[in-house]
């Protein structure tokens, strides 16, 4: 689950991490009222679950409440990389003396959290890491001992945090790491983490993404569902289906993520494009097949459907029977190609031959047929 800036900052503030004074607004009028309350000189920021909003014009620094209203109006009418801006965050402008980068994320290759600190805050950290690796301190946290003072110190020293700031920065890092752990986050990022004229360290921006597998521990978490961008993805989520909307014309149903991905690749190989990714899992249970098929049939982009199932423990003849009974109940307005493989595949195909469904023996043949039918 991704958190919008203001959502992340609410979590930060609850964990004792300093954040600027501010409030979120859904209208330009609200923005003006908040700016007035904050004293006029504020920052207006688009709340979208994606980076690069600054470059896209989604952030404005203004001197007055009237200006804040104007900018909020403009930003609220934007769409940033496909995301319409529904809310803006209005925050008191800060007196910034220096900017740092602070992030904690999961390193897949090392199978451990990695703490990243840099004195080159406010910039794209990947770019800084590439051009000035000495300015980016990466410290891996052994899950067996967790974050310890020595790692925090190492990160500060290597990032050249000024000596007089190390103690405060260490406390800041410890709090951020606690958020990372307690929220089951896979990413917490503060960029910039600013040193104010007052000497205080503060999270000027905030990004957080949490682990969906751990959602049961955080029933009240307030964030944005990342995979549900398309209405069909939203619907799939409700149905508990592993579905991704794509921009082609061949609807795909398969069992097993690897098999489905390979099916998409195969469609492309035969000159077509898949309209979706849909993994119905092992055994191809009737209800899941039905939900999956009706989802795909409701997609106006879909011109043909390829059902690609490998019968493993469940035999293909049983899979065929299940498929037939499901399809007979449905109103099917596009051609369907079924490919069965694995245990008792021939028997399965024989059963399907009596239906109006097209069958295919091989993966290639199935993909080719589905592409041809989509074009017909």
């Amino acid at each position: 689950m991704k958190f919008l800036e203001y959502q992340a900052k609410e979590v930060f503030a609850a964990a004792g991490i300093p954040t600027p004074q501010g409030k979120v607004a859904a209208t330009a009028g609200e923005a003006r009222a908040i700016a007035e309350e904050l004293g006029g000189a504020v920052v207006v920021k688009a709340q979208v679950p994606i980076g690069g909003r600054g470059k896209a014009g989604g952030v404005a620094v203004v001197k007055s409440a009237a200006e804040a209203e104007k900018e909020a109006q403009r930003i609220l009418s934007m769409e940033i990389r496909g995301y319409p801006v529904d809310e803006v965050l209005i925050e008191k402008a800060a007196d910034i003396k220096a900017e740092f980068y602070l992030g904690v994320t999961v390193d897949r290759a090392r199978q451990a959290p990695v703490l990243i600190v840099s004195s080159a805050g406010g910039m794209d950290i990947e770019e800084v890491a590439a051009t000035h690796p000495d300015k980016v301190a990466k410290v891996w946290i052994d899950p067996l001992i967790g974050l310890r003072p020595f790692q925090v110190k190492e990160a500060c020293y290597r990032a050249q945090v000024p000596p007089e700031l190390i103690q405060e920065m260490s406390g800041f890092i410890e709090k951020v790491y606690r958020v990372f752990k307690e929220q089951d986050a896979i990413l917490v990022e503060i960029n910039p983490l600013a040193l104010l004229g007052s000497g205080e360290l503060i999270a000027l921006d905030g990004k957080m993404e949490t682990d969906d597998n751990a959602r049961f521990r955080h029933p009240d978490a307030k964030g944005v569902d990342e995979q549900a961008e398309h209405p069909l993805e939203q619907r799939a989520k409700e149905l508990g289906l592993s579905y991704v909307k794509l921009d082609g014309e061949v609807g795909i149903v398969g069992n097993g993520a690897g098999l489905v991905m390979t099916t998409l690749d195969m469609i492309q190989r035969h000159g077509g494009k898949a309209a979706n990714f849909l993994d119905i899992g092992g055994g191809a249970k009737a209800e899941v097949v039905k939900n999956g098929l009706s989802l795909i049939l409701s997609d106006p982009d879909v011109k043909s459907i390829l059902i690609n199932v490998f019968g493993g423990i469940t035999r293909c003849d049983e899979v065929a029977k299940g498929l037939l009974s499901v399809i007979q109940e449905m109103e099917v307005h596009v051609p369907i190609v079924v490919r069965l493989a694995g245990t008792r595949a021939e028997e399965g195909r024989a059963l399907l031959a009596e239906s109006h469904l097209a069958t295919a023996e091989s993966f290639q043949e199935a993909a080719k047929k589905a592409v041809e039918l989509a074009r017909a």
Partner: protein
Amino acid sequence: MSILVNNKTRLLVQGITGREGAFHTKQMLAYGTQVVAGVTPGKAGESVEGVPVYNTVREAVDKHGVNTSIIFVPPRFAADAALEAIDAGIELVVCITEWIPVHEMMEVTAYARAKGTRLVGPNCPGVISPGEALVGILPGGIFKPGPVGLVSRSGTLTYEVVNELTTRGIGQSTCVGIGGDPIIGTRFIDVLRLFEEDPQTEVIVMIGEIGGSDEEEAAEYIKTMKKPVVGFISGRTAPPGKRMGHAGAIISGNTGTAESKIRALTAANVPVADTINEIVDLVEQRLK
């Protein structure tokens, strides 16, 4: 020979009284695997398919000389079950459960390394050494003993390849489903090392997919290997930033692309097949 599991495997099933646990216990027994004990807290004294059930792993280990465990415990309790198996000193733990939180898996993999336990999975179909032992949920019927070692991040794709291999008369030494999660106990490189040392294995098939950099890491190791490896990468047409079913199958920024993986494998002299048939063609050529 084979790797990881064989006729000396003495298997414990954690979560044996659950629907999945009970069903696959039956399948594994039918395949000939020595399933010697099961664990479900609070169900000691029961039995499943004739296999005695205990409350704790330690008790099962003490009474039955368990050396391998398979986990069918629900996601909220699976990491604890894995820690219990590792703490009890079991050599090989195969975790079938999916949806285990990432933070828990980082702890579990680190603990497994610390204690010298080999963990396979989570979110994997398990391991089979055809004719010897099945420790997983793979459909035993499609496998046959032979010289091909197979390691894969995907279950059904493995079955597709194996089905084709077996249909063409080519058997397998061991097939290892390492799982599709971002944090997994055993990675390509670990299994390749085992196959390289296994006398039965002559050719290795490695089925990768988008996401992470394990294929690239494996490619570096393959450069030092003596045995031929055939590669396959799924998800070539997947868009960046989208999870393709597997939690680990996602292209983030510039990492995890199919191109990068294919490039790395090609640089290691690994032919990367375009189709499943082609995988088997390449294997056939290398066996002759």
